């Protein structure tokens, strides 16, 4: 990776030190609390799937039953596996059915019963983590056998609401050149406190994230990967109230990337900050183990705030995402930090500003598979002007060595892309890649020139903001509206009632295994 900007290593080091200082208390919060979704993810890892006749997942019903009698302060594992033994249940599903019918009195076992329950839980959850390890090994084999496309990876979105419509569209997109397929979720799924079950054919502006939908799409992309001779990656969203569970399902079904931002749900979905940070740490531990690349959502700040004025908030969020990600065990190669080409094209020198921002991020995170998002805010009904703007986005992405390019559609903001919109978008990026693919090797911003000065300025603003946040605390900064202009107090938002302070003696076999073994030896997930 070429260093093109004269960034002061001392300033970069100061930025990382401040990010650690800001993030530390949040990690401590996550280590001392749990959530209903973390506990449900433990049950999913132990193999509990399915739902009752109303469609409510057994993991929800069982977790709620435990919470109602024994409480969740010690985690779900001890009471559940104690009840499994006491009731002689053949499997968790049988226990969950009885528990949902109110037939099980849970308790927090002590002494030998506790030891036995913890051991049984560790075995059951361990087999789920072994399944995730096996899926990761399977991905590594396929990447070696089938072939891994060169970067930048071309990222395309499908979202019909019907998984059986999504599949042929995703396969067509892969044949047209997509290296990554993202299935956009149904609007509002992030606010559901349960994961829907089964294959789904109806969604609002997107398709529900379910385990079965994950499985169907991954299988279809495996077929097309073999056909094309390159491994096509699959992306979904580990965000919202069920972040830990969806991360778990993604690992079990060999998804390759997951949207997983440290603050997106807080800012844009009014999910409680404390809930988010606890859920996030667990979900990132699972992603680390599964070899999944996370994609963060900094691009979203620029859809609300001005892309020039708020450029430094993107950098601050990226540094925080990096700190939280690494603390949870993610390797640099798993940090798909996000940013975007969103400066108003009417601003003078806007392309040079974009180059400065993109190059700054590239140099701050040299080993991260950066995800670069196309213009959306300033795309109008003038599709011709939009096509030009997308070409400049592609050029900026290629000149600054971005790793993942989400392909801009000239009809952004008008409709979900036509087949022809997607085809033209791919023609656009192919042209730029072919015409200027090696331009980066000759891209040398003038020392002390406009681009370098702007990058240094944004980094300086980021350090100043981190310094301020380190004094006030991150939760206070979020409550004060530092990010994305919206104020989100720590005691507000959705999902706070699902946060539980851990008691001494809390047992979570999943976290124990993930922290005991470490991530799978920091293997390079993205190559």
């Amino acid at each position, binding site marked *: 990776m070429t260093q093109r900007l004269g960034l002061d290593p001392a300033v970069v080091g100061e930025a990382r030190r401040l990010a650690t200082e800001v993030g530390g208390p949040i990690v401590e919060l996550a280590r001392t609390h749990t959530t209903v979704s973390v506990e449900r993810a433990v049950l999913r890892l132990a193999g509990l799937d399915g739902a009752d006749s109303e469609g409510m997942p057994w993991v929800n019903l069982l977790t709620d039953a435990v919470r109602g009698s024994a409480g969740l302060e010690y985690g779900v594992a001890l009471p559940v596996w104690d009840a499994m033994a006491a009731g002689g249940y053949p499997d968790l599903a049988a226990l969950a059915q009885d528990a949902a019918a109110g037939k099980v009195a849970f308790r927090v076992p002590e002494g030998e019963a506790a030891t036995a329950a913890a051991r049984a839980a560790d075995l059951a959850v361990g087999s789920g983590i072994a399944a995730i390890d096996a899926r990761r090994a399977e991905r590594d084999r396929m990447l070696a056998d089938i072939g891994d496309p060169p970067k930048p990876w071309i990222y395309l979105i499908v979202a019909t609401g019907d998984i059986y419509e999504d599949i042929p569209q995703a396969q067509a997109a892969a044949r047209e050149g997509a290296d990554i397929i993202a299935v956009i979720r149904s609007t509002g799924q992030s606010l559901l406190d349960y994961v829907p079950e089964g294959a789904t054919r109806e969604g609002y502006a997107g398709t529900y994230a379910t385990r079965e939908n994950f499985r169907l799409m991954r299988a279809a992309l495996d077929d097309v990967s073999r056909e094309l001779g390159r491994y096509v990656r699959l992306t979904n969203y580990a965000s919202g109230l069920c972040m830990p569970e969806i991360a778990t399902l993604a690992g079990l079904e060999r998804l390759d990337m997951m949207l997983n931002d440290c603050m997106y749900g807080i800012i844009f979905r009014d999910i409680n900050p404390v809930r988010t940070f606890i859920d996030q740490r667990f979900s990132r531990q699972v992603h680390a183990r599964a070899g999944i690349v996370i994609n963060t959502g900094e691009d979203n700040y620029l859809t609300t705030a001005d892309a020039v004025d708020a450029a430094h908030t993107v950098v601050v969020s990226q540094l925080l995402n990096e700190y939280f990600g690494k603390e949870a065990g993610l390797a640099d190669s798993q940090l798909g930090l996000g940013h975007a080409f969103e400066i108003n094209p009417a601003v003078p020198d806007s392309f040079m500003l974009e180059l400065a921002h993109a190059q700054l991020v590239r140099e701050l995170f040299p080993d991260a598979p950066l995800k670069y998002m196309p213009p959306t805010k300033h795309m109008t009904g003038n599709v011709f002007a939009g096509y030009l703007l997308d070409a400049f986005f592609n050029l900026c992405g290629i000149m600054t060595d971005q790793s993942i390019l989400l392909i801009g559609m000239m009809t952004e903001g008008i409709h979900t892309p036509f087949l*022809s919109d997607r085809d033209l978008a791919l023609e656009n990026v192919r042209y730029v890649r072919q015409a200027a693919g090696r331009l980066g090797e000759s891209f040398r911003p003038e020392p002390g020139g406009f681009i370098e000065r702007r990058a240094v300025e944004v980094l300086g603003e980021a350090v100043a903001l981190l310094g301020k946040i380190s004094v006030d605390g991150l939760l206070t900064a979020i409550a004060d509206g530092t990010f*994305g202009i919206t104020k989100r107090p720590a005691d507000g938002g959705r999902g706070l009632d699902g946060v539980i302070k851990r008691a001494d003696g809390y047992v979570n076999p999943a976290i124990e295994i993930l922290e005991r073994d470490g991530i799978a030896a920091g293997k390079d997930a993205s190559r």
Partner: protein
Amino acid sequence: MTVIRPYGDTTGDGRVQLSFTLPVPFGDATQRARAEGAALQLAAKMGLDPAMVVHAKGMGPDFTYFIVYGRSSHLVDLSQVTVAEREFDLLPAAEVNLRIRSALGRKLVVLGACIGTDAHTVGIDAILNVKGHSGEKGLEYYREMRVVNLGAQVLVPELVSRARAEHADAVLVSQVVTQKDAHLSNARELSAAFRAAYTSGTDRAGPAGLAGLAGLAGTALAASSAVAAGTAVAASSAGDARPVLVVGGPRFDPGMAGDLGVDKVFGRGTTPGEVASYLVHALAPLPTGTGNGAGG
């Protein structure tokens, strides 16, 4: 002149461009000729004569994309153009904020909820959350609005008391579930409760708020820029008048506001910007004499 034609480079030449995709293959020479013939047939049926395929490209094995130029044989009679009357202008966010600031001198308070057994917050969240939908940010994004989203299954009496406590200017209720017309009975319960609770009878929305015109979706911005600066109207202290009542959901008929006793009904496809613009129209009117083009 009231009869006109499209203009390419000469008055009256009628020249237009269009692009489209047909589900036909574009492989060998025979297939290509057939595909172009199909495109020309469509162009002719659309009134383009003569028409010329200037670009054709296969997209995968089954589709072909075309760019066609042609002369439209149709005439446009300007005297027959009718412009739908809208009760309020669609305003950009900055102007919504400015109008609130100058008319109210404080934040406009919006209370949102799903009432009855309806647990589907997708609609109210799409309007209120910063995230928004259809490329528009939700009402939380507006600096001059204070949004309180109560979520799902809120009881009407609770909604009334929260509206009083928060000094709500507007109450937004979303209804997705429509079994046995629950959305209609819930809306009537809502309006009856608020009318009973705010007995002073000083409705905030004037008669314009009851008009309930249809046809809100997807129209272009027609923002009036005639905002008079510095003529803030002193707002009466919040809480003494009934909040503007707005209901919305995919099965509502926007024309039935009067029947339901609410001030405004929004149907399928409503965007946050439309709701914000309506709230400004109803609650933060322009000072008189500034020529609000919408006639509100």
